């Protein structure tokens, strides 16, 4: 331990003059350091130094006008139905749609999306598009054909499933994806995949733009 030096005090010297006491200038810093570290610990534990991460999400507008509805090619559409117990049901297009299921692992959903992308690329060839790079300069890219992914979380799904699905969109660089509500038709489809999906495009457009 550090100690307070006390040997500075001078006594009477033989026959000398009386001198004022010379005090040592050394101070014991130990309590001060103790206090300092105590406060550091306190502030370290109470601060939220790390900022949380965020994931930006843009939802489509509520009021869509009928004339703004632009049809997309059915073969480019992949619908993901997020079910309970971390399961994902998916089907491609709407005509003769076949329901399949997978999970959120790298071999599961990611493979499904990448396969679909390859398929679309094979069918339509690569497409170029303009995108701003990090410096804000627009540049042309030819990352391949785009697909449209519809994410529809069911009532049984948890919030984590949605975030996981959005993550896959970022990982696979899917440019067009949207979160939609599950329709009754699709709920029936999950329960009874054999009977197929009886989807009427006009009815759906009507429902979305009412």
């Amino acid at each position, binding site marked *: 331990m550090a100690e307070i030096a006390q040997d500075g005090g001078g006594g009477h010297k033989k026959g000398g003059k009386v001198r004022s006491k010379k005090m040592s200038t050394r101070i014991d810093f130990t309590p001060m350091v103790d206090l*300092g570290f105590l406060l550091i610990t306190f502030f370290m534990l109470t601060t*939220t130094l790390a900022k949380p991460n*965020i994931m930006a999400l843009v939802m*489509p507008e509520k009021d869509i006008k009928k004339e703004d509805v632009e049809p997309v090619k059915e073969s480019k559409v992949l619908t993901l139905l997020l079910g309970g117990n971390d399961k994902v049901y998916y089907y491609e297009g709407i005509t003769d749609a076949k329901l399949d299921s997978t999970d959120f692992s790298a071999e599961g959903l990611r493979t499904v999306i990448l396969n679909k992308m390859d398929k679309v690329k094979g069918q339509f060839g690569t497409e170029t598009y303009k995108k701003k790079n990090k410096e804000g300069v627009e540049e042309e890219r030819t990352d391949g054909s785009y697909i449209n992914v519809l994410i529809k979380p069911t009532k049984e799904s948890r*919030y984590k499933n949605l*975030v996981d699905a959005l993550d896959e969109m970022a990982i696979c660089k899917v440019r067009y994806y949207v979160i939609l509500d599950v329709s009754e038709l699709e709920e029936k489809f999950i329960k009874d995949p054999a009977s197929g999906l009886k989807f009427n495009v006009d009815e759906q457009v009507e429902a979305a733009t009412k």
Partner: protein
Amino acid sequence: MPKNKPKRSAPSIDMTAMCDVAFLLLTFFMLTAKAKPQETVVIDTPSSISETKLPDAGTLTIMVGKDGKVFMDMAGQHTRLSLIDDINSRYQLGLNDQQKMKFANLGSFGVPRAELKKYLDLPPSERASYPVSGIPIDTADINKSELADWIHNARLAQFRMKQEGKVKDEYVMIVKADQTTPYPAVQKVINTLTDINVNKFNLITSMEGGPKKE
């Protein structure tokens, strides 16, 4: 022959340098510190690969707990004071200046409007044990939804403050939900937001390593 014993004294260490370091760190932590707001609800956010950080601008956070209860928190004392003034006079809550001040300094809250007065009167230690029911959402009629009303008015209050030059930016909207929150609860919040034309918002996630790049 007497042994030549070295003179023993307690080892003295010079603490000055250590003290310097300690106080340097202390100063650093004090200046960067932002008091952890009192949590009314524990939320374990799902992990994602997103690396975008929360912006410094004022945030309006809507929290959805595990049980689907909805809480709200917004930054800025001025805005909160202006907001509660507005809400108080509109819905005749009968809050006095002291209670309004309490609201301005409050962290997140999740009580129906009618219970707000009672909730504010509680000492902070008892608020944690108050049986909060969350902010009510009416999905059928947006004009009756308290959550929509709070968000709308909070954004208006922030806008007023911006015009007065008290804050720089408008609110950044944030949705924070627990991993295990059932989707319908989140859906209600998202629908409320899109109903009042808030189509851009952010989901809070925690860090996760991205896939390995080939």
